[in-house]
């Protein structure tokens, strides 16, 4: 029973296109607003220092094969030494950092602001869609779905014999929500559009991390097996030069 319903042209003009346009515009607006609202918090020097130490340790781990074994080992001891190694955090301090993190009102406010700026436009748009565009068939999705999706997709339509492919505008909203992510990354450059909450948490939780990531880095550094690559490079240079000369 796949008879083709003929839908009013007015639906196309006044529902599909405006909804998509509104979502694109809201996305662009959100991008610019988040750029403006990026409040410049004065970074805590201790946290910055620890962050830099982590970066150094990571570089050491990555480029370990380019330095002679002895210097690598001396650097590693400098980092993970028990008494005054930079990466070694005694258990007492570890708890402290987290407590300080939570009680710092500034950080909490920032995280809340970022989360909210993500959630509010979505909620508002969803409410707007529900209020104005409910109770009729909005679009037909070109592929068949099972009956179980009916309640999810055909929200305002109370006929149970209509094909599941005919969906309400709420599902058009969701389709737009997911599909426009790719479009945003093209227009706005560098995946800026649909920053998931994970990324927000990561940026906000920079103070959380020190104790855990320090120990993680230390473990990673301890694991590294050093294999000096430079002797082979001499051979390679020789081969390349030979090719050039001949």
């Amino acid at each position, binding site marked *: 029973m796949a008879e083709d319903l003929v839908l009013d042209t007015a639906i196309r003009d006044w529902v599909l296109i405006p909804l998509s346009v509104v979502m694109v515009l809201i996305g662009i607006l959100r991008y610019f607003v988040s750029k403006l609202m990026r409040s410049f918090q004065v970074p805590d020097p201790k946290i910055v220092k620890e962050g830099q130490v982590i970066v150094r340790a990571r570089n050491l781990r990555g480029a370990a094969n380019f330095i002679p074994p002895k210097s690598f080992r001396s650097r590693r001891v400098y980092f993970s030494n028990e008494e005054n190694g930079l990466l070694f955090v005694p258990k007492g301090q570890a708890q402290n950092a987290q407590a300080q993190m939570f009680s710092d009102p500034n950080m909490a406010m920032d995280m809340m602001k970022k989360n909210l700026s993500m959630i509010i436009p979505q909620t508002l748009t969803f409410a707007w869609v529900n209020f104005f565009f409910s109770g009729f068939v909005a679009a037909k999705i070109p592929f068949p779905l099972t009956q179980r999706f009916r309640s999810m997709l055909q929200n305002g339509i109370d006929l149970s014999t209509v094909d599941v492919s005919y969906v309400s505008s709420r599902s058009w909203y969701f389709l737009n929500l997911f*599909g*426009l992510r790719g479009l945003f990354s093209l227009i706005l450059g560098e995946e800026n559009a649909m920053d998931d909450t994970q990324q927000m948490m990561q940026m906000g939780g920079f103070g959380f991390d020190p104790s855990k990531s320090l120990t993680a880095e230390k473990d990673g550094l301890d694991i590294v097996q050093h294999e000096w690559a430079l002797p082979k490079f001499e051979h390679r240079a020789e081969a390349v030069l030979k090719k050039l000369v001949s």
Partner: protein
Amino acid sequence: MAGHSDSSSSEKKSSEAMNDVPTFSTENMQNNMKVIYYSRTFMSIIGGVIAGILGFTGFMGFIFYFLVMAITSIGLIAKAKFSVHLYFDSWNRIILDGFMGGLMSFVLFWTFAYDIVHIF
């Protein structure tokens, strides 16, 4: 890498030593990944519009999506002059990366074009 001169290629050489210790320049790798992602997104949007206009429904549409993705992969491989290991660290990256992300955009534009052309 003496002897090679890439004038204006959008993919940069990311692996230097072809010996036992392969080294990768992360910045170039990331740039290459971005190039793949953009290409796939763009192609999936265009592919969605084409599928909608041509009136593909159901299974045919998804097959068309795979076709478009395969064409994109082949195009990327050709651009990398068939020596994938110089630019990426594994085959899977250039073939499979960005598959799912493109799917949603494809479905959106497919539905859009299909509705505008055929139903209304």
